[in-house]
């Protein structure tokens, strides 16, 4: 089955990352790169997103398309990236997500077939 792992950043995680010195931060990024390398056979696609202040949201259900600045949900927890994976079942997806070394929340959603 195909799933998308949505990586969710929290304010605390962003603050922790910001408080790291250069070397610590590089080690954190290296752990993430290693995770992608370790599981490359199961990951079909992945991306890291720019922060929510770069987002632009368009509403199409209120007559004229309405363009607004920012994400569609303002929240303390924001999706910061995703990976599309192909695994046998939810338990395998969970196992993969449990080993994720970075942000503290991962949402697992099956891709509609």
């Amino acid at each position, binding site marked *: 089955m195909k*799933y998308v792992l949505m990586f969710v950043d929290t304010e605390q995680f962003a603050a922790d990352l910001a408080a790291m010195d250069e070397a610590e931060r590089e080690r954190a990024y290296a752990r993430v790169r290693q995770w992608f390398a370790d599981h490359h056979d199961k990951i079909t696609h992945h991306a890291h997103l720019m922060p929510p202040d770069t987002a632009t949201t368009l509403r199409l259900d209120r007559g004229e398309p309405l363009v607004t600045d920012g994400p569609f949900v303002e929240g303390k927890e924001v999706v910061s990236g995703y990976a599309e994976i192909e695994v*046998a*079942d*939810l*338990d395998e997806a969970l196992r993969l997500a449990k080993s994720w070394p970075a942000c503290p929340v991962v949402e697992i959603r*099956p891709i509609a077939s």
Partner: protein
Amino acid sequence: MTHPSHAELARVVRDHAGRLTASLVHLVGDFAAAEDLVQDAIEAALTHWPTEGIPQRPDAWLYTVARRRGLDVLRRESRYREKLTLVAWPAEPEPDDRLRLIFTCCHPALPRTGQVALTLRVVCGLTTAQIAKAFLIPESTVGQRITRAKRKITDAGIPYRIPAADELRTRLAEVLAVIYLLFNEGYLSSGGRHAQSRDLTDDAEFLAALLHHLMPTEPEVAGLLALIRLHRARAAARFDHNSEIIQLQHQDRSLWDHQVIADAGRLIARAAALKRPGPYQLQAAIVACHAEAERWEDTDWTQIVVLYDMLLHLAPSPVTRLHRAIALRYVTGPAAALREVEALADDLNGYHLFHATRAELLRDLGHADQAQAADERALTLTANPAERSLLWQRLNWT
């Protein structure tokens, strides 16, 4: 032909429903479809068996109906039809597959309400109507919970298998939590229970016994089974003929089932020998201290406090601390116990037993007015009729 009793019907259906579902999942390769077929067969059995009697081979009867329904419903799906026609019943005896069934129903990706409803229906063979009646909720709500849970199993790819060794501990804890919730639900409502309504404590004991049979070396499973049996062994003494609660110290201990209590004690000892203590084993050991005391005065309170300390070490909780304080009253006296209880005020202010316990201790220490106020507060916090009645009596005495 004698007409089978309500309890006998429930028992026979429960003994076969889970096995049949497990076989059919194996056969048609689809959990939701297999579950539908078995539920249809159970509904048919509950229509026919009360008047026609329970057939000699209830498993073959249920299988034949499920298979016939399967052929009707799945006529378009040749894949299922071929599989269903291929297999004759009784099939070769195969290993009991109900463990997979239990772990699937209690998968942590399902909400607790869905886990509970699904386990009762799939593993114990309850109908949607029986579950609704047992929990005093509308049938449509139960139906919706089951439909959603089954859809999630299919759509989210929840596997039909026993978890791997490294996940077993957390996954088993989830299953035990479902069984314990069922037991508590049944136990707390047992006072005013209608004779015809389902005894959920019986289903909880069935599930714990089944799990113990399938996983004999898991000490927490044995602990939960012992805990349930120890409570049920004393059920006959818990209420008087007016459905009023009889407190432990006033219960007629000759009404307890001492054989069951002795067996549960041995079960706890065997579990303890596996040297992996856990919250259910400790709770069972605490209940055993009460059950094994010949008289109220013989209760080993020192041992109970020690067991509560171990339990708090493994699973800290304010409610457990409250229970420890109650035991402490008989070891170091009401003043020390009251100090412990008062320390829990922030956490347990909304819990009726906190105020009821405070009331008892205050009364012991001669503060009748404060005791009365605490009892009144407890009364506003519980809806359970038997507990309300007990608190009322106490208010009237003082």
